[in-house]
């Protein structure tokens, strides 16, 4: 277990490196919300949470992952490359003409994705449809949806929350990347989400509250979510926007601005230091 967590942490560092590199190369995109979700996505793909097979992406019994906050596409692309679904060299084509790595996840261009996203608010509803279908087919795979805190302003998030709670869809799992910021400002300024746990509980969800950068905590929360019966689970992952890169942390300028070459260099150096501490 100790070893597995250490491996996951090293994987997370590689994913952060790829996120920075691809964004610096594309000169546009969203670093903040990609970096805050690294531990979540790493634990899902590499911690044995998602049942999946890079050799067989269409495998019917795979668990489904939906990146509802589609602007965080870089973290998903980096994970898909790390897992071997796509070639690592493809990452440098992010957002470029002709690339399957569109600015937001695009199933037309990258068919192995579960959904095309980018208009916020829709991921949980998609998962509910998939969840009902799985039940009708007597299939046991589960749905995992990553949503944002700003995204949680959308009415549809709460329509779908109410629905999944009412129907006790325990094959739906939501992870809220609670990084405190949206596009224009902090959640606290635009629309305060707190008391967030109460809101989900009131909709009859099983709620887990974790530090979204504590790999061990995130990993066991995901295990718990997957095993939990009788209610859908939401993991409230307390995260830092821009996590892992000092000058991006809680600096909402990096919501939608890519790092310069200089910033890339500094960021990679910081990640190298983080790696040195681990090994």
């Amino acid at each position, binding site marked *: 277990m100790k070893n597995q967590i250490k491996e996951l942490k090293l994987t997370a560092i590689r994913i952060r490196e790829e996120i920075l590199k691809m964004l610096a190369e*594309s000169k*546009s*995109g969203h670093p903040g919300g990609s970096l805050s979700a690294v531990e979540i996505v790493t634990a899902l793909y590499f911690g044995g949470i998602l049942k999946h097979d890079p050799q067989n992406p269409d495998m019917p019994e795979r668990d489904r992952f939906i990146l509802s906050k*589609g602007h965080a596409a870089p973290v998903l692309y980096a994970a898909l490359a790390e897992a071997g679904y796509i070639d690592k060299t493809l990452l440098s084509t992010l*957002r*470029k*003409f*002709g*690339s399957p790595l*569109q*600015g*937001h996840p*695009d199933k*037309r*261009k990258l068919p192995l994705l579960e959904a*095309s*996203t*980018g*208009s*916020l*608010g829709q991921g949980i509803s998609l998962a509910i449809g998939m969840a009902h279908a799985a039940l009708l087919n007597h299939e046991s795979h589960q749905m995992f949806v990553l949503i944002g805190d*700003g*995204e949680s*302003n*959308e*009415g549809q998030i709460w329509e779908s929350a109410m629905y999944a709670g009412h129907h006790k869809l325990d094959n739906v799992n939501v992870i809220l990347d609670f990084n405190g910021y*949206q*596009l*224009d*400002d902090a959640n606290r300024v*635009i*629309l305060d989400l707190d008391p967030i746990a109460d809101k989900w509980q009131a909709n009859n969800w099983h709620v887990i509250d974790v530090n979204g950068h504590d790999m061990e905590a995130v990993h066991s929360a995901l295990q718990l979510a997957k095993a939990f019966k009788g209610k859908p689970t939401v993991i409230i992952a307390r995260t830092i926007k821009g996590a892992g890169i000092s000058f991006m942390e809680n600096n909402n300028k990096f919501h939608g601005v890519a790092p310069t070459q200089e910033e890339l260099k500094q960021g990679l150096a910081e990640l190298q230091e983080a790696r040195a501490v681990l090994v």
Partner: protein
Amino acid sequence: MRNDYILGKATRLAYGETLVEIGKQNKNIVVLDADLSKSTMSNRFQATIPERFFNVGISEANMVSMAAGFASSGKIPFASSFATFLMSKGFDQMRQSIAYPNLNVKLCGSHSGICIGEDGPSQMGIEDIALACSLPGFTVVCPADEEAVRQLLPQIVEHNGPVYIRTSRPKAAQIYESSDTLTLGKAQILRDGTDLTIAAMGMMVVEALKAADTLEKIGVSVRVVDFHTIKPVDKATIVSCAKETAAILTVEEHLLDGGLASIIARTVAETHPVKMAFIGLDDYAESGAPDELLDRYGLRAVDIIGKAKELVGLSN
């Protein structure tokens, strides 16, 4: 009119700046945004008149109905988001709470068309004109440059009724000078000609003008008309173009069904049928540099020239 096509401000920036000016004069104006004020540029208003600015968060439907509430209380709300999110997510609210009661709400969709570039198709507003034009009583406006925004926005305030305004992300070529006069509801003839009319809107107007420059050199006389008001469309100008030029070519950075093509074709068919051709989009686009996308999706002067030559019977 200018003919050097030098890049000026983006129409979204002109929108934000002009809103501040008219907001200072008219205390009834309130501004709403859905967590995109840095992009729609309504944050200019927030910075100057914060007490009349409301950021509703990422809840477009909520914003549209709120705007209706403001309007039914005598305020003049301007509500903005990306064109696609505003029109798609706020459509039922527009239908039920704005169009049906005919309320004085102004809506602004930024990041229209495919020239937003790298963010890709999920963020591109290419159905917005069709949706807005489908609503009875709506006035639908797509300014081509900053001066057009500066002149049309005050008229939009004066007009009592719902209006949708479409703006764009990149810098726009300057077409108008302050000495030109734009009138809401009246198409602007930018250059006259007899063989062909090119009807364009927004970012496509400059492409039409560039195409006309080249066509003129090979002996095709082109009339270029800026349909900055798409609804109610200027029927009189369409009829005179149909009568006075032999053909009409429409150009829009929007899906061909339900946009400028459909609207002009209906008037032409009803009044004075002439040969027509249509340039626009027929599918979703993709990520890429704005210029690359306009090239790839055939929204350039060169594409207009090709279609125009076909239309007037010249071989390419």
